[in-house]
């Protein structure tokens, strides 16, 4: 029997979806083209009806108040065969009138129902695959964006802090995994003065990082021309307003410190209020002003403070005071002030705060926002002057650097344990979606490297372990194999001379390093005198493979 009907298969999911494909089965083979789109809302009564129908449905005679039924009729459909997988409606096989214009026979229906029963699981699988592919692409894009944002951010943080005689300066910056747009800056000004900036761009990721970079550049320009912090912020605001994306703004504090006198003149565009810890208490440096980039024509109140000897000034971003503990309580200002009262040197103020924060949030806390702390202290007498800057990238693991640890373990140096290693690693690595042929190569290379470590590095002393560490950055797998045979050099993995071996002029052995080098995308060797580490890198996916035999 030749199917002469027009078939329309409509992919269908829990959400409203627009798509439609017309399949025309003719003697010349199937032809697929876009058909009319029909939306089926999840709450349309026809969904429940189809799920219970148990076979082909004649929609012309179907008595149901359903928008989808009307849409199907408008599209010229006569017969609908629901595709059901595990009780769930996953698609429809929609048929228009037969070309003969006769009604569908019970034979036709039986055939279609058989077809639907077989097609449903296949369509479900295809839907799942498509979903998973989209999810993988989305994740990859997110990771890529994170890396770009981090790069921009790092690029525009100060490379070094000013060394001011009689002053200690410490800055700490720890970006959240999704970079939040914090920044700080020190600007050298005439007369030995120094401009101090701390700011925070609303929003996250690349847009925030770009606005941060722009703001920093504009501010540096304005600071070099204008002496008044209030005027500087006013100027930055004017320049930022026309260019900043809607719904974004920048909070920023800008002040000019005269190290000779301890005079600090400042203005604040809606940023967290700085604190100054004097001997007899902590005071807030308040000054009125709207965040930058919201609206033109803003003016910024300018205030002045005096930093005496032993006084500490702290500037910070909301990443710290708005950090939450596991019960949802915020770190808050009292804790910030408390940490300042008990510390003197600026590095100690920052250590104190971070320690307090770690105790407050507990283990396993995922940092919500960037944390920036800048502490400035006027020293009394002979105390040391220093400028110290810490950029802590530990939160960024997984997006950059070493990556996520897949597994880390040791095996005794006993021949055969190379198999234990590859069998332990194979499953978790396979789950990362590595191409099967690459997994095979990885297994061979790792087994050879572990065998080398057992036999050459550790000389088969069973009480000496071989350490294995596998990590991934989402695109590569990196496996390090460490033995205790540091100091001894590994021979070069030169190509063994097969002809000489076959002629008996060379030992048949000596293939280990050659295999490792050919199976791994990258191999590096390091030694610290005691240990010897071979690190192998494998891409999860590769372009065309020159090695693979067809």
């Amino acid at each position: 029997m030749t199917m002469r009907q027009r078939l329309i298969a409509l992919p269908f999911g829990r959400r409203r979806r627009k798509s439609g494909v017309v399949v025309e089965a003719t003697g010349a083979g199937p032809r697929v083209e876009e058909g009319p789109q029909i939306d089926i809302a999840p709450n349309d009564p026809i969904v429940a009806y189809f799920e219970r129908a148990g076979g082909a449905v004649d929609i012309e005679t179907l008595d149901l108040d359903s928008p989808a039924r009307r849409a199907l009729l408008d599209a010229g459909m006569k017969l609908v065969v629901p595709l059901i997988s595990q009780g769930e409606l996953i698609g429809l096989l929609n048929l228009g009138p037969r070309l003969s214009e006769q009604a569908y026979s019970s034979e036709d229906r039986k055939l279609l129902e058989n077809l639907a029963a077989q097609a449903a699981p296949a369509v479900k699988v295809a839907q799942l695959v498509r979903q998973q592919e989209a999810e993988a692409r989305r994740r990859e894009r997110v990771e890529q964006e994170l890396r770009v944002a981090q790069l921009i951010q790092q690029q525009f943080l100060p490379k070094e802090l000013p060394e001011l005689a009689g002053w200690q300066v410490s800055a700490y910056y720890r970006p959240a995994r999704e970079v939040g747009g914090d920044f700080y800056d020190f600007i050298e000004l005439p007369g030995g003065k120094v401009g101090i900036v701390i700011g925070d761009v609303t929003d996250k990721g690349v847009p925030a990082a770009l606005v941060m970079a722009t703001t920093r550049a504009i501010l540096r320009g304005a600071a070099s021309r204008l002496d008044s912090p209030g005027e500087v912020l006013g100027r930055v605001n004017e320049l930022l307003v026309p260019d900043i994306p809607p719904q974004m703004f920048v909070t920023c504090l800008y002040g000019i410190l005269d190290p000779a006198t301890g005079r600090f003149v400042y203005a604040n565009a809606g940023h967290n209020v700085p604190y100054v810890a004097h001997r007899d208490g902590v005071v807030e440096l308040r000054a009125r002003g709207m965040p930058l980039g919201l609206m033109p024509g803003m003016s910024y109140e300018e205030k002045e403070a005096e930093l005496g000897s032993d006084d500490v000034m702290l500037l910070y971003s909301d990443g710290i005071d708005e950090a939450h503990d596991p019960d949802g309580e915020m770190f808050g200002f009292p804790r910030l002030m408390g940490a300042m009262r008990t510390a003197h040197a600026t590095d100690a103020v920052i250590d104190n705060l971070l320690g307090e924060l770690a105790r407050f949030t507990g283990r396993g806390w995922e940092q919500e926002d960037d944390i920036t702390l800048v502490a400035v202290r006027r020293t009394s007498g002979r105390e040391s002057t220093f400028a110290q800057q810490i950029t802590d990238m530990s939160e960024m693991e997984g997006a950059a650097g070493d990556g996520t640890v897949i597994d880390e373990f040791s095996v005794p140096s006993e021949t055969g344990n190379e198999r234990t290693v590859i069998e332990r690693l194979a499953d978790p690595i396979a789950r990362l979606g590595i191409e099967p042929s690459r997994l095979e190569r990885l297994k061979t290379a790792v087994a050879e490297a572990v065998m080398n470590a057992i036999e050459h590095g550790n000389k088969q002393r069973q009480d000496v372990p071989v350490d294995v560490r596998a990590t991934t950055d989402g695109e590569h797998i990196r496996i390090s194999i460490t033995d205790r045979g540091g100091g001894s050099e590994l021979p070069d993995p030169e190509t063994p001379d097969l002809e000489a071996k076959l002629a008996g002029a060379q030992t048949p052995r000596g293939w280990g390093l050659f295999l490792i080098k050919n199976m791994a995308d990258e191999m590096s060797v390091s030694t610290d005198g005691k240990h010897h580490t071979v690190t192998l890198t494998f891409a999860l996916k590769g372009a065309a493979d020159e090695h693979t035999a067809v």
Partner: protein
Amino acid sequence: MNTRPCEASVRMVEDVAVIDLLGDIDRNSDPTLTAAYERAVAENASAVLLNFSDVGYINSTGIAVIVGLLARSRTDGKRVTAYGLSPHYREIFEITRLSDFMTIYADEQQAVGGSPTQA
């Protein structure tokens, strides 16, 4: 332990001695492979065909054993061929250039027929 010791049996197909290998090919398989090869030569076979279909693991020391066998077959003037390699080990036989000295076939029929078309 996850290793599977190598076993080898020899059968004649026409005048070709087929060595069916089972298990892992590593340094421990040397005596087994050598014994099987000697039996094959004793059968006066025109060629020796290694069947790798049931071999799941070959490492560098196994490659060395095969190189040793090939070196010996050279002096004996015996042709050694192979089939049943997984794509991965086929790749390894190619990059080590073992396949330059040991024709690799897709299956036994092709190998015994000596069809010049390699798989």
